[in-house]
């Protein structure tokens, strides 16, 4: 990112020439651009740490890496005040329930950054019985940052990538200005294993199949 991008000059539309002496006070731009510019430069992440990656997230916010250079240092503890959910660590089946609730509580526009191997796809603990294979199996993700854990530089690159994504959006197409309410993600249920309500039909079908095969293969259910 060059310095110009960050100031008022970055907003200017080159099709409309502005006299040199007015360039720091006047900008001729589109609504989309100024809307995205303001949003991208003042993201408020949720103050929410999950596991090891959270330590690197804190290090990123600390003085050496200095996250505030990108307008992202205002971490809010309440999901109602946040517009970026950084999933910083392993998502367990027990934890996915509160995470989906938190995501649903965040006001739109909202973004999700999956930080590290665990949040992106399960990571080293994927084979375990209590780990979700990636947060994107439940909530939509905008940016994935690889690493275990990602270095602070990698996380910052993830933030900049997110800013680029925001700057490419348009008021006409973003989902949160369409008519009607946006649908909440159904909250998973803790059963004998985690149950995603969206998979209810699939689970039902498999249970029927299992029951049918039980009837044909083992006539006497007492035999273990």
């Amino acid at each position, binding site marked *: 990112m060059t310095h110009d991008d960050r100031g008022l000059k970055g907003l200017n539309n080159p099709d409309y020439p502005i006299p040199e002496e007015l360039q720091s006070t006047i900008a001729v731009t589109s609504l989309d651009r100024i809307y995205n510019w303001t949003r991208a430069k003042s993201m408020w992440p949720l*103050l*929410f*740490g*999950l*596991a*090891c990656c*959270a*330590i*690197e997230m*804190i*290090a990123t*916010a*600390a*003085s*050496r*890496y*200095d996250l505030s*250079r990108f307008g992202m240092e205002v971490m809010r*503890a309440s999901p109602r005040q946040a517009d970026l959910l950084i999933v910083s*660590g*392993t998502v*367990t*089946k*027990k*934890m996915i329930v*509160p995470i989906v609730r*938190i995501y649903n509580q965040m006001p739109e526009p909202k973004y999700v950054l999956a930080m590290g191997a665990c949040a992106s796809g*399960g990571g*080293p*603990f*994927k*084979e*375990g*019985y*209590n*780990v*979700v*294979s990636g947060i994107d*199996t439940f909530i939509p993700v905008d940016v994935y940052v690889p690493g*275990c*854990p990602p*270095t602070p*530089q990698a996380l910052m690159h993830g933030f900049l990538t997110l800013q680029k994504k925001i700057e490419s959006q348009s008021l006409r197409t973003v989902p949160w200005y369409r008519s009607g309410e946006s649908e909440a993600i159904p909250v998973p*249920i*803790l*059963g*004998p*294993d*985690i*149950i995603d309500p969206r*998979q*209810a039909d*699939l*689970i*039902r079908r*498999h*249970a029927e199949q*299992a*029951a049918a095969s*039980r009837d044909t293969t083992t006539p006497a259910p007492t035999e273990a």
Partner: protein
Amino acid sequence: MAEKPVAEQAGVAAPDPVAEILAALSEQYPDAVQADTRKGYSGIVVRPEKLVEVATALRDQLGYDYLSSATAVDYLGKGDHLEMVYHVYRIRQGGPALVFKALTPRVSATLPSLISVWPGADLQEREAYDLMGIRFEGHPNLKRILLWEGFNGHPLRKDWKEAYYEQDQKPFDSRWPGGKVHRAEENNPYGRNVSYPDDFTLEGYTPPDENSIYAGLGMGVSMQELASPGLETERLIVNLGPHHPSTHGVFRMIVTLNGETIESLEPVMGYLHRNHEKIGERNTFIQNMPFTDRLDYISSMSNNFGYAMAVEKLLALGARYQPPPYRAEVIRVLMAEFTRVVNHLWAIGFLLNDLGAFFTPALYAIGERELILDFFEATAGSRLMCNYMRFGGVFKDLPERIQGIPLLTNDRVRNEPTMDFLDSLINERLPRAVDELDRYLTKSEIMITRCEGVGVLPPEMAIAYSTAGPVLRASGVPYDIRRSDPYSIYPELDFDVAVRYNGDIYDRYLIRLDEIRQSIRILKQLLPRLRETEGQPIISGTKAYSPRVPEGEAYGRVENPKGELGFYVISDGGQNAWRYHVRAPSYINLTALSEMCKGHKIADVVAVLGSIDIVLGETDR
């Protein structure tokens, strides 16, 4: 490792402590105790009916007042029983552990609870119930702790298979040696890491609601009474976490308040339960090393140390074992003490966070940490997850030069010889950073009013609740494994065991400053040793990826920054551990949390929790 080869040990005619204890016990309980004679095992096997009596005798008559670890083992196919293994210590004399075991059949497994003898058994017995399915008679609050009520089965049993199960042990045939990769999701009918019991139907299932969770907490509070309209009461239940800025991760506490005063507190955990032990039993021995990094993710180096020591103890049972070379031990201690500094700086910074001084003290506290992380990165290749130690040494020597990260606006680019870097770090920068924290914080009025006399843990309670590390030592118990049950090269190093006597939050803060200073003292003594041993080997024997680990059990423990970190490893002579258990200090220190918080105000809870210094990767594993 101070561990000597077996041949050498046999030459010394030291009295066998287990035989002595066994003799003393069998006089009183002739039928109830016998020696564990399996190959590679030690300790005493106690008949379940007499377990509580024998445990009481061990505590009261024989001085074993500290229950360090209690865990269960499933011997499916090797005797077909479940076994509860207890490691107890003498706090005052120090010395090695006494191991005793109790057996129970796998079907309807039941053992008496030892919570009446050592209250520190509380959370550990609940864990054994949750993961192994042993019921403990007499446990007042026996319910699942890491998983949720309603979870299908007890996952650490050997016949329990996870959703992505392929084989009992790695490397899996589907991937090795063919080198093929596939996504586990593709083999799972739901495309997720889930499996449901065969007879499971969604229609017949009602999930437990929050009300039943609260009502089931066993806190002596009736939810109906609280909800009934006519009752005049100021009691209420407050839920903190799992998403809460002051719980150091995803910890949850449910507090019953009377006004603002805490009547009872129940820790709820498992939100970061990553199945460390189940995965650890599938992995080969060496594959577990990077997983230990992620236990206490602030102190990965010393986690490595503990695991390496446990497996080296097992290796020492074999014939061809060589202990790590001297330089490897020096480097290990160097890393462990740096880790202690990092951890305590972090703990102090975030204790201040919990007191309400948001982030500014933490910025000061963790500034110097970055230098140590640079050193870790230059040596092991990673800032946080170092995966540095191996059985018999470390995998790489110190680098020649340390280079800083280029292109950081707030940083000076460094490029200097490692020893110069360590010299200035240990002799100048770290002492200055500690003095700075001391100057800013120790006499601060807010610090004193918030911390003095709050969350007091008396010494006898600290021992009974199996607390360890700074929490135990701040209560006036000078117990430090580096001195009480020495390992590595600690016997030749000159340092004091830091101890404070009031057992409140303030002392737990002060003792961390003391310990950083002692660590710096140790680090200073390591510098000449590093120079003397330059060029010497850093690992013993050959660099085997898959060492042959003899049959037997071993308990390796180190004084981690947060307390006693123990690894209980059982080998059946194969490629992977039969049982791999982590005695996590963060987890067991929480046993005392409820007692420490009772009678204080709700605002003090976060401060007390901050002073225990937990990390969830280790708590939930």
